[in-house]
């Protein structure tokens, strides 16, 4: 029976032989195996680095069958790096991918008004979004007054201020209104700090002359605000 010392000795000898051979061991194996970018769409496997996102998408819900490029290489306003036949586009606003607004797809706009472009997509990915009738599948996120539908006023939307605040560029964590979209439509965790009024201050004046009087409610203002935090798990 081979004892432990003898086994380590064998391993050491084999290792020395391997090192002495003509091949050198590359620190990062595969770093010289280049991807072929001549095909349509993105030829770089995004999931190699973003497997966790792939897992999230595969876990259920919506968007399970959509490739990364269908969202992240679809803005007409960007200009991605691409190889289109013999023409090489070096990329302008982004190289491989951009962080796009949910509303890029869900704004209810059709060509040519839409900023969505299919130019950088793999031709085989059409049916990920479109059925055979080529209908627009991404439902418009109506009810905030952000789509071209004249009926989409959003005047009664309880979360409209949330969406509009998320859209303010100067104070933006994400593109467009995405913070608001993903807060509700994904399982992302969120800490929401509310500051709510707990009291109304009402000013009531009695207006009178000798022969005529009425009570006038001149002001109603919210007051006594208290903060509290909601943690969405």
């Amino acid at each position, binding site marked *: 029976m081979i004892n432990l010392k003898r086994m380590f000795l064998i391993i050491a000898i084999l290792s020395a032989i391997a090192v002495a051979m003509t091949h050198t061991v590359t620190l990062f194996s595969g770093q010289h195996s280049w991807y072929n970018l001549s095909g349509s769409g993105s030829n770089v496997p995004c999931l190699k680095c973003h497997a966790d996102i792939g897992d999230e998408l595969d876990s259920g819900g919506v968007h399970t069958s959509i490739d990364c490029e269908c969202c992240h290489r679809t803005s007409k306003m960007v200009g991605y790096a691409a190889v289109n036949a013999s023409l090489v586009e070096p990329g302008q606003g982004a190289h491989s991918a951009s962080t796009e607004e949910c509303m890029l797809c869900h704004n209810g706009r059709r060509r040519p008004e839409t900023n969505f472009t299919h130019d950088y997509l793999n031709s085989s990915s059409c049916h990920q979004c479109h059925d055979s009738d080529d209908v627009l599948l991404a439902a418009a996120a109506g*009810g905030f007054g952000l789509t071209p539908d004249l009926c989409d006023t959003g005047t009664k939307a309880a979360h409209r201020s949330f969406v509009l605040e998320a859209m303010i560029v100067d104070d933006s964590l994400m593109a467009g209104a995405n913070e608001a979209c993903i807060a509700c439509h994904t399982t992302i965790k969120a800490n929401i700090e509310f500051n709510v009024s707990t009291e109304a201050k009402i000013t009531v004046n009695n207006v009178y002359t000798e022969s005529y009087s009425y009570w006038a409610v001149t002001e109603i203002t919210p007051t006594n605000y208290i903060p509290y935090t909601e943690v969405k798990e």
Partner: protein
Amino acid sequence: MRPITFAIILVGLVSLVLLLTSTNVFSLLPEQHKFINIDNPSNDIDCVACHSRIRAELDNSDLHGNFSCEDCHRFEGTGIIFAEGGSLATSGEEAHAAYTPRCLDCHDSDGATVAGEYATPARAFCDENYGCEYSAHKALVAKANESSMSVGENEACLVCHTNYSCELDYSYFKGISYNLSSWSFGTSFSYSGQRDYTANWGKSGAKHVFLSLDKIDCTKCHENIYEALVTGTNGDPDDYLTHAPIEISHRGSSGRHWDTGNPWGHDRYHYVPYENRAESVNNSYCYECHNVNKYADDNPSLPYDLASVATDTNSSNVHCAEALWCQTCHGRTKTKKVIDNPDYPSGADKAEGHSDTSGYGDFVDDVTSNYARTFQGDICMGCHEAAVHPSSGSGTEECQRCHGSNQTSGGNADVYIESEPSGYATNN
């Protein structure tokens, strides 16, 4: 090397290699790509995940506690198009996930069925122009509708019907004075001063804790009146308990008793017995005058019939309280007009009522016609307040100030009375 040490070093090395060679990057906001299924043709987003506090409030609410968020905030009776998933997804129009409901959306004149329950119409505020002018809180509701603090009239609904607190800053006159001579004020009437009074109905502040109707406490917002009725002007043996008129009568069990007995032969309607004042001045007491119809409904075994009195009022046409004045029930044509004293139809103690043309004229109606509504209660209380009729008096001189020496001709009384809460009055 001990096996355990060797194992730890091995695990550490393997972990290091995995970490250095791993190609995964870490997402800044994990789960942002884990989209919620919205295949159902209704709301699939868990409102409570972000609004658990509101759910907890509803769970402690007397009313609406069985409602889901969607029952109110995606109420279909408004015609609002909300976003919906499903195979034929609906794009929202006026609202996406939810709207802030106006209470009257459900409690309108037709009512509505929500979660299997009928939402009763909020009479009279659900009626056109918020109903008649006699609704005591109509100005509040109208102002709430103008206010941008919440949708519609909700501010007014919330302060009474939920645990949302309210502070009311009132300003009104401080006092009035007049000389009553032969049932006329001549030109003697005047008002003076300004009283600022703050009433605060402090509650938990929770807008989604709806109160059962018996928990809506009139005396909280109208604390000045409560204070007047319960404490009056401190330090006086005959507290100046304005807003609770005595009913002048000689029919006590012995001597003068303002608390029991009157020409109608029943316990005094307005007067609050001195004992347990703090408890006796409650919603039911307020309804005695400000919603006679409800008071009668709530008290079917009363020793007196209020049906005709209710018809003298507008109480069936108001929301909870009627803005009224003494004449509403005690005017010349009203059921409880101020009548002749049946105990003494003639003689020295004859005292005629002063809402009738036959005796002292239309005094009550004249007051109603000639003076602002805000003064009318205190005009009456200037004589009908207990403090200006001390029970220790000799018996006749207090009457004579108003009724004259032979109880049939008008007397001469100089009256000063302050508004609530002091109610201090002099009648000389």
